[in-house]
């Protein structure tokens, strides 16, 4: 299952990026886009322009979203609870009508072209939904039968392959109501993988999975991506996005804060100077004297913004003041730092 490219990717990925962030358009470059003729939007697999959704209750869930998901990317769609991720995905999948603005998927307008576009898209939206009284296999057979372009002659084989891919072969005959949360999640993923897809839209795919399951999903996502499938993955787990995504967009309160290659996003936020020492109070005082702003003490760890001056001088000053330094260095900014820098606030639920 594409081991070679998966390993290669793993090799290039201590920081979760590829050299140029995108991949060349492979053999999947796009019958739908070609046939649609409407891909003057820069070739994005998903392109939204001023996409807005106000629910009937008056809640403005998505506000003027300009999103471009490059072909071949693993695109992390990041945001706290209630920021509008699922609402955006529902609009992309044609489940709800935008209040205003446009959404193009695979070069075609949604929801108008849903029947032409969606056979190429596998989706997991807001968790799996299953028929509890049917077996796992029968659930997949039903979802596959719902697609009028899916060949019934290959149906059983494709269902078996999808079950195998998510490791559910042994439990395929069990009634879905007897599945654990993680098994349901896997079955939902299997439904998204019933056919070769050009785009996978996964709304919080690791929800409810154990650490082993999470790792498997990440591996699966990388495999799929190496086959040329674009993966659009929503999450509120920053480290998850950092681990698998090439690109990311950050949402908060229905608005897009930023989007781009993951490396650029975290580079945008400056790293922090961190000192590990048993003499935390002294260290904090010295750092402030040396012009380090925003000093934070957490037990034996003192951190602050990286100052303008030479860090060697700062270190020397610490030692001169008798601070016993165990560790000294600049920590690379995480996506979380980037997020905090962008929003000026923590990762909390919007009202």
């Amino acid at each position, binding site marked *: 299952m594409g081991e070679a490219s998966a390993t290669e990717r793993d090799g290039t990925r201590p920081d979760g990026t590829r050299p140029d962030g995108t991949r060349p358009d492979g053999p999947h470059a796009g*019958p*739908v886009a*070609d*046939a649609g003729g409407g891909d003057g939007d820069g070739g994005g697999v998903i392109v939204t322009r001023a996409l807005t959704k106000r*629910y*009937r209750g008056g809640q403005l869930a998505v506000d003027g979203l300009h999103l471009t998901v490059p072909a071949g990317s693993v695109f992390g769609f990041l945001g706290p609870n209630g920021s509008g991720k699922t609402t955006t995905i*529902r609009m992309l*999948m*044609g*489940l*709800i*009508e935008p209040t205003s603005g446009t959404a193009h998927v695979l070069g075609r307008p949604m929801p108008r072209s*849903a*029947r*032409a576009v*969606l*056979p190429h*898209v596998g*989706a997991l*939206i*807001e*968790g799996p*939904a*299953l*028929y*509890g*009284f*049917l077996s796992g296999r029968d659930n997949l*057979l*039903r*979802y*596959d*039968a*719902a*697609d*009028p*372009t*899916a*060949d*019934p002659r290959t149906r059983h084989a494709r269902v078996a392959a999808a079950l195998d891919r998510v490791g559910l072969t042994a439990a395929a005959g069990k009634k879905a109501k007897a599945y654990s949360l993680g098994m349901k999640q896997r079955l939902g993923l299997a*439904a998204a993988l019933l056919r070769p897809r050009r785009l996978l839209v996964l709304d919080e795919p690791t929800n409810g999975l154990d650490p082993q399951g999470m790792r498997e999903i990440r591996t699966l996502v990388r495999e799929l991506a190496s086959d040329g499938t674009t993966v659009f993955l929503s999450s509120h787990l920053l480290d998850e996005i950092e681990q698998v995504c090439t690109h990311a967009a950050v949402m908060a309160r229905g608005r897009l804060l930023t989007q781009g290659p993951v490396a650029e996003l975290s580079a945008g936020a400056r790293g922090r100077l961190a000192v590990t020492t048993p003499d935390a109070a002294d260290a904090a005082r010295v750092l402030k004297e040396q012009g380090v702003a925003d000093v934070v003490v957490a037990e034996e760890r003192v951190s602050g913004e990286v100052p303008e001056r030479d860090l060697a001088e700062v270190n020397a000053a610490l030692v001169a003041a008798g601070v016993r330094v165990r560790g000294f260095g600049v920590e690379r900014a995480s996506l979380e730092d980037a997020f905090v820098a962008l929003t000026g606030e923590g990762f909390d639920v919007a009202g």
Partner: protein
Amino acid sequence: MSRAETAGRVSPLWTFGLFRSELLTTFRRWRTLALLGVLAAVPVLVGVAVRIETGGDGSAGGGGGGGPAFISQITNNGLFLVFTALAVTLPFFLPMAVGVVAGDAVAGEANAGTLRYLLVAPAGRSRLLLTKYATVMAFCLVATLVVALSALITGALLFPLGDPTTISGTRIGFAEGLVRALLIALVVALSLIGVAALGLFVSTLTNSGIAAMATTVGLLTTVQILDQLPQLHALHPYLFSHHWLSFADLMREPVYWDDLTKNLGLQALYAAVFGSAAWARFTARDITA
């Protein structure tokens, strides 16, 4: 739509896979089977009751005018249990069962969240709704046939069988009696398509299967009550249940078609009106569940 790109050769026949899947899913639900079980039990109850009542003395139960249609003839001819059972179940049991299945059709899937996965499959909203309606109609037919078959078997076991006498007093052969019974079952099934359309429309309005089922059954009861109020006489011809019992006219010689056609016309009207309403609603609706 069906562009070559989708997978080379897409056969238009594949679209019926959803109907097959829908039938399988509906008839594998425990609730559907329970409803059919209840429907099968009604003729048995009626048959046993008639048998006990008449105590085997052969004469029809005393008050000739009382009770449902044909009941006084059952002791002479078990075939009449089919007609009686349909007359007993048509006012409530059958439409209630249909109301439950139709009400649950869309709302139940919305409630379980499976609706969104069917739609992104993509089932297509019109196609899914049509499939649902076809399945509910199939259920109408199966439910009616279950009642008729259960009645036929019970009738054959508990009573003698023979050439039936029509309402007009003429005798027809047993084989023709069977054909009429089948025809009546078909007409009864068709009598239910109005309720089916109404139930499906209600089902598109809500995300709660229970609410849709309760509303449909509530509407059914209300219509039955309205049909009993003489003050609303002018309204009666437009109530979907008004001509239901006209199926008995198939047991006349010659068959009296007037009320039968009125009934079927009314059912078609309900199917058209509520079918369109369901379509308008379902194709425009935000699926957020």
